[in-house]
């Protein structure tokens, strides 16, 4: 990995950490499009409990891992909402980067063994048949 790529990745990761760690606290708390559709047909009281009607939300069953320490984008035991949401976001970004990055790194073509497909080869020889990605 080149130094320039490392700088780009670090910058991108920093943006993701700020979005998940800070900006996430300013996200809308309204139901999203899917949840909105799931609630159509039912009436709700002030505590957001279903009081009548027919809707998908009535059929919802609890998540198998609802007791997860990071369930619902918070950290159990941290009462401050901002801290709880922000830290769970930071952990999620780091975890996703580690799992995704690790998996993709293991799946990648090893450039030295595949001489003809070395880094940058795609750009240098666009007419090569193996480059037809579309």
């Amino acid at each position, binding site marked *: 990995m080149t130094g320039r790529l490392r700088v780009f990745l670090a910058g991108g990761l920093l943006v993701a950490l700020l979005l998940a760690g800070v900006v996430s606290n300013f996200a809308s708390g309204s139901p999203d499009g899917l949840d909105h559709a799931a609630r*159509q047909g039912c009436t709700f009281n002030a505590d957001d409990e279903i009081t009548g009607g027919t809707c998908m939300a009535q059929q919802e069953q609890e998540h198998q891992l609802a007791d*997860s320490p990071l369930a619902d*984008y918070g950290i159990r035991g941290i009462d401050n909402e901002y801290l709880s949401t922000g830290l769970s976001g930071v952990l999620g970004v780091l975890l996703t980067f580690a799992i995704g*990055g690790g998996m*993709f790194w293991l*799946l990648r073509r090893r450039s030295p063994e595949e001489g003809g497909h070395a880094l940058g080869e795609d750009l240098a020889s*666009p007419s090569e048949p193996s480059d037809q990605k579309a």
Partner: protein
Amino acid sequence: MDDVQAMHIANGIINGPVSAIFIAIAMAGLAVCVWRAKLDLDDRLAPMAGLVAAFIFAVQMLNFQVLPGVSGHLLGGTLAVILVGPWVGALCVSTVLIVQALVFADGGLTALGLNITNMALIGTAAAYLLVALLLRVLPRSSRGLGATALIASVIGVVVAAMGFVAEFALGGTADLSITAVAATMAGTHTLIGIGEGLIAATTVVTVAKVRPDLVYALRAFRAPIRAKAAVA
């Protein structure tokens, strides 16, 4: 207003047999993606794909208001297709969905096949077809790339939402009119798609300005200028 909401299909909304079928469909789809992704992934694309997955996780937490009482969030398919290609991109979105289901209890485990099929496979496939087409016909500029991201996002998100409607038609547990569900999903997701499109366009245009060599779609879907000149 500051709680991040659960945002994917929960357990129970689609019945067990249909959920199981979609787990099989999702696994088959992901197997194809892994097979094709191996051809794309190299020392440069692999870490970039990790970053794209992490970025999608972050942006999915940022619900934006689309109507009074209704919000939406990015799904990520178009962004992923443009930055890392369709096969790796579908795996990026899947990684996010799996982390969310296993660690954040968002999106039921039984419903994981449904969520992966809609957002990682169907939404990404629609985005891929549109990106591949639009980059060939739109101007070779930041505006062309931005417009590609916007249009592919709107359609990709609505198509992903229709994936849910199809699953609901096959195995929905609530006694509701399919057309009513389809209309609600299409309406809100058109607006959500516009929001997603603005985020995706901003992101890919920024990356294209800083490191155009890291944008998969510019390498793969636009005929290289030099090759064109050589042919002419």
